């Protein structure tokens, strides 16, 4: 009859419990991208000037509140 050392069994137990605790949080986020701070999305060189779009709030063209 095959058997494993008790220490290995305890290690497996810790892994199983950790995965069981973590997986529900992961399942809920699969397919979703966290909405975070804006990053540089566009850099354009025009007429020798660099144009950076960094913070969307600086270029608000349409502001409504739901």
């Amino acid at each position, binding site marked *: 009859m095959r058997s494993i050392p008790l220490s290995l069994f305890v290690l497996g137990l810790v892994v199983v419990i950790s995965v069981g605790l973590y997986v529900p949080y992961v399942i809920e986020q699969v397919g979703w991208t966290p909405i975070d701070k*804006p990053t540089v999305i566009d850099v354009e060189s025009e007429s020798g000037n660099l144009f950076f779009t960094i913070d969307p709030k600086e270029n608000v063209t349409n502001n409504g509140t739901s």
Partner: protein
Amino acid sequence: MARVNLTKAVFLYIVIYIIVFGASYLYYLHRTEVVIYDTNFIVGDHVGFDLNSSVITFGMVTPAGSASRGINILESDVARHAKLYARGDVSKFISTSQHSVYVAPDSAQEIMLDVSIPVDLSFGNYSGKVKVVLLTD
């Protein structure tokens, strides 16, 4: 050295995993409130407004332009953390000042969502969904 029967160990692992996973998932559902909104914006040659409050719509935005809409987190008697997620065409262009927002007890909080349109984005309708996860402390 103490040893454990492999068959019994595997069976025990499966039972414990099911119990831990179930309890963790129920706990997660118990302490979270999830609201999913449809969201969209149109890239066009002029600016257009759309103040529909049932969806997060940014109206028409020109290339290199941007638009903002707010989400109101209403008051509650417990402290919460709001986390925001997106999917669909909009997810690459949508941003906010902070991914996780703390909402104190008995206070409301507005979270601003912004879309920034790259210069070279094609004209058209871009849609997706925004998920707000409210996690109770």
